[in-house]
């Protein structure tokens, strides 16, 4: 009734109602008079035909006035100094109802002042202003699924509290700020909030979820961010990084002028000097001695231009980007089995899945908004299976949690499939109609009896069988995975195991099903789509196919090299061996992100002419001959393609600082100096038009169409609505059928021994992003998490004499790092974990660069280490 009234323009005061949440009916302000029934809370009363309702007058006003008076009497704080002044619901209601000072004076209770909690760097909790509407509690429990706060105590003492009443920063709070934006009064308020004078609709620059958001701008500064409620990706929600992590844009360390190395030092230069230096450095190395590394943080248009420059101007296919380090096996694996290496389904379908299987993804940390959506689906009744070597946050919400040994994924998944086949739970009709190679695949299952699988994975056989039955019988089932599947020497096999499982149960090509690799970077999907890969031109069109080359040669007016180029890891090796003499590196920081990172630093220091284009002087940029200052996401136009293949518009909100320029502009100027034709674009819109002409799946995508909202590819023509679900009719393979792939279990490349008895697995923190270039320059994020911690089981720690917080040395066969230890049961005995967000603790100097033979991804998820107390 409340929503009906509000929609009809009839104001009914209310505090505890929020459209995203179930009605609670606790504030008693929306009371209305229903004829024949008396007073009823409008928020919890369904509208019925023939009902006569009075929203004001008589008893309604009286009841409402008493409720408001009691709230105001207990509401402390000075409206003029309150962050919510002017946006406060209680102010609005008081004005509507009308307040009598004398009646209030009679109610004023003995003064009680509760301490304000300022522990979170981004927002403040003032219980003295709280009206106990419970919106924050319900948001945290049911929308975010974190459950950091609840009502505690009783009667007049009731307050919203963390566990034990401690500061919010030390609770399970994920700092998403969803409660803060919903708080109707000043009890939860963003610190140092400033009202924007205008808002610009764009896409978050962090992870692959691609949340829609508005940047609030005052003059030339971003003063706030709010989620875009219209975005089908996040429906208004954001995580801590998206909402509060924009401070890096205005960081004083932003590069504001080109830098050229003179006498061994990087010194500021003009664009003309810098571009001349780049052209001079690149010109002698055309062909296979040049390589370009594109960026999954840059726009589609920029990646397109970078690979076009490498291929058409420099004459080489040596172009790759960081997808090599994250989802190369998804592409090699899923192209083999399904014909396309992207998420088959969309984020919006999660809420309708009957079962969700999350393997090798710490979703609530690495893809927080999808993580929250999965938790929400699980609360609403979807079965949730989580498989992870660590007891991650999502495991708490799981119906079945499989804690398998690092690197034993193939065995675990094949064991589940063996159960499904043995118990005849497979979707035989689907297999017969839409798949091939089922026989040989079934034969390969024979080796995966549950005894063997239990021995390899360490997971009790009953649990494996239980998970198999759960996944096979609750349809549709959506499977998610991320780096835990791909970053292995058998990453491609892992990916194939996930697609085998989905095919076996008919969970592909249907709503709320599918194989869904969660892409890491905001535009890693797009960078792949744009052909920033050594073996394919834009749109995954193979460089070794003559008809493909002919098409691009005629469009670009050049001759294209036909031999596939080197991958990122191979490019770095080749630079170290002197085979690559010039390297153009855009928006990447391989000195921290690559496995066996010290080797990378040495290789890049070997004398190849190195040009780095970035927004900060990253660890890698410090090694460069020329550094080119780039614009951040907030300072340029373009498109990002998120993990669900949705192409979304990025919009310029402010001017780039100093002399910095958008990446597409810089690359085009370099190309022109080297004689490149076809780089005279007026702007990104025209680049996208060229992409649409050459990439069939982007054929119908243009800036004009994206004004309304994103479009998931394939979108082949102007009027096409986009394709949220892949493979509904036929698979993207040659014959239209999906392919089962027989698999064998192969152990990780590096085994533990007496000297290195523990397994180190790398993971991600919710607070920081990748090598920390952006997030560590946001003061509040650094305050929440300021240093690397190696996490280990208390049993292992005790055996080594290590206490929580001790400084320890973690060593592998390749390197050593000093970090503090954090003891946690989340790591099983024998396994330690660390992120790689911190330049002073370089986890990737320890990791193993052993490669997957097909995808060439390094095995950053498993390496043997030893931990000892630092002397």
């Amino acid at each position, binding site marked *: 009734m409340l929503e009906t009234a509000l929609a009809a323009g009839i104001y009914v005061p209310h505090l505890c109602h929020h459209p995203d949440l179930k009605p609670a009916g606790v504030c008693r302000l929306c009371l209305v008079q229903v004829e024949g029934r008396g007073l009823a809370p409008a928020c919890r009363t369904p509208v019925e035909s023939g009902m006569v309702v009075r929203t004001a007058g008589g008893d309604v006003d009286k009841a409402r006035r008493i409720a408001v008076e009691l709230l105001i009497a207990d509401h402390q704080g000075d409206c003029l100094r309150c962050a919510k002044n002017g946006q406060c619901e209680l102010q609005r209601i008081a004005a509507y109802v009308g307040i009598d000072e004398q009646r209030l004076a009679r109610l004023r209770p003995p003064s009680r002042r509760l301490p304000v909690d300022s522990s979170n760097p981004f927002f403040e909790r003032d219980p003295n202003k709280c009206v106990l509407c419970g919106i924050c509690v319900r948001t945290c429990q049911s929308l975010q699924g974190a*459950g950091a706060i609840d009502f505690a105590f009783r009667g007049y003492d009731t307050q919203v*509290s963390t*566990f034990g009443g401690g500061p919010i920063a030390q609770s399970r709070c994920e700092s998403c700020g969803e409660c803060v934006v919903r708080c109707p009064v000043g009890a939860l308020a963003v610190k140092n909030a400033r009202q924007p004078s205008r808002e610009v609709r764009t896409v978050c620059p962090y992870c692959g979820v691609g949340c829609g958001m508005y940047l609030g701008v005052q003059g030339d500064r971003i003063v706030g961010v709010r989620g875009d409620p219209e975005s089908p990706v996040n429906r208004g929600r954001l995580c801590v990084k998206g909402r509060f992590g924009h401070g890096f844009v205005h960081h004083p360390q932003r590069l504001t002028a080109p830098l050229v190395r003179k006498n061994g030092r990087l010194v500021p230069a003009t664009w003309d000097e810098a571009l001349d230096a780049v052209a001079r450095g690149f010109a002698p190395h055309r062909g296979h001695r040049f390589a370009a590394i594109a960026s999954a943080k840059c726009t589609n248009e920029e990646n397109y231009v970078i690979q076009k420059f490498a291929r058409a101007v420099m004459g080489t296919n040596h172009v790759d980007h960081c997808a090599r380090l994250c989802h190369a096996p998804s592409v090699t694996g899923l192209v083999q089995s399904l014909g396309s290496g992207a998420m088959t389904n969309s984020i919006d379908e999660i809420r309708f899945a009957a079962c969700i299987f999350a393997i090798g993804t710490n979703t609530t940390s690495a893809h927080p908004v999808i993580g929250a959506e999965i938790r929400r689906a699980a609360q609403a009744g979807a079965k949730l299976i989580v498989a992870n070597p660590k007891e991650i946050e999502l495991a708490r919400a799981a119906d079945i949690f499989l804690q398998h040994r690092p690197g034993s994924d193939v065995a675990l998944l094949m064991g589940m499939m063996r159960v499904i086949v043995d118990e005849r739970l497979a979707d035989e009709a689907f297999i017969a109609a839409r798949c091939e190679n089922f026989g040989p695949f079934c034969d390969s299952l024979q080796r995966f009896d549950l005894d063997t699988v239990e021995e390899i994975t360490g997971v009790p056989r009953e649990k494996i069988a239980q998970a198999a039955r759960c996944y096979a019988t609750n349809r549709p089932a959506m499977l998610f995975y991320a780096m835990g599947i791909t970053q292995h020497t058998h990453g491609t096999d892992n990916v194939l195991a996930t697609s085998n499982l989905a095919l076996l149960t008919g969970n592909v090509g249907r709503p709320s099903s599918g194989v869904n690799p969660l892409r890491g970077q905001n535009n890693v999907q797009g960078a792949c789509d744009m052909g920033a890969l050594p073996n394919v031109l834009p749109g995954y069109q193979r460089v070794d196919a003559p008809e493909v080359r002919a098409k691009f040669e005629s469009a670009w007016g050049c001759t294209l090299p036909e031999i596939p180029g080197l991958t990122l890891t191979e490019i770095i090796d080749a630079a170290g061996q002197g085979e690559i003499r010039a390297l153009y590196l855009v928006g990447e920081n391989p000195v921290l992100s690559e496995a066996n990172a010290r080797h990378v630093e040495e290789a890049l220091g070997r004398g190849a002419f190195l040009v780095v284009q970035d927004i900060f002087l990253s660890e890698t940029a410090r090694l460069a001959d020329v550094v080119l200052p780039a614009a951040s996401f907030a300072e340029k136009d373009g498109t990002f393609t998120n993990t669900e293949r949705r192409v979304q518009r990025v919009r310029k909100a402010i001017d780039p600082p100093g002399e910095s320029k958008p990446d597409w502009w810089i690359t085009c100027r370099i190309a022109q100096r080297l004689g490149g034709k076809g780089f005279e674009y007026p702007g990104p819109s025209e680049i996208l038009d060229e992409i649409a002409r050459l990439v069939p799946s982007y054929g119908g995508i243009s800036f004009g169409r994206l004004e309304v909202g994103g479009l998931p590819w394939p979108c082949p023509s102007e009027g096409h609505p986009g394709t949220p679900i892949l493979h509904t009719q036929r698979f993207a393979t040659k014959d239209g059928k999906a392919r089962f792939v027989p698999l064998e279990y192969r152990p990780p490349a590096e085994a533990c021994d007496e000297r290195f008895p523990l397994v180190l697995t790398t993971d991600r923190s919710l607070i920081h992003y990748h090598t920390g270039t952006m997030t560590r320059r946001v003061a509040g994020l650094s305050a929440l998490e300021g240093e690397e911690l190696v996490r280990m089981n208390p049993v292992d720690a005790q055996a080594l004499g290590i206490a929580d917080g001790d400084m320890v040395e973690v060593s592998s066969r390749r390197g050593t790092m000093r970090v503090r230890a954090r003891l946690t049961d989340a790591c099983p005995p024998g396994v330690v974990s660390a992120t790689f967000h911190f330049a002073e603790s370089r986890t990737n100097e320890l990791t193993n660069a052993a490669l997957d033979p097909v995808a060439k991804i390094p095995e950053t998820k498993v390496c043997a280490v030893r931990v000892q107390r630092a002397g």
Partner: protein
Amino acid sequence: MHPRLRPILDSFQGKPEELIPILQRVQGAFGYLPAEVLADVSRFARVPESSVYGVATFYDQFRFTPIGRRHILVCRGTSCHVRGAADVLRAIEDHLGIKEGQTTPDLAYSLETAPCLGACARSPCMMVNRKVEAGVTPASVRALLRKANGHGAEPR
């Protein structure tokens, strides 16, 4: 996980609606609700830690600090109140140096009040480790506590 918690949880299935019985058993075994044990209870019962805290603070029967070896419960019912329970409580507080709801640092005594102990005919009264002491006066408190020291009963 605390070794004394495992056998308690083994008799439950791990459902949210089991939370209160689990908390009662935990308090029975530990004498109070230790924070680190509650974290495991939260995980087991699939109830957020904050909600476990919410439930535990709602009901008077749960406590978060260790109980003294001698647990004193002073009645504040109407009958006891009329016959001087407030003076009795103040006398005990003065004698032990703690306030209502606290435990002495040596864990010898803890002091709480109850709305009514149901012994109105013998007011004012109090309970020491479940044994009712009737007709208490501020003057008799000291002797009663000395006697409580002697009978060596285990805390509840």
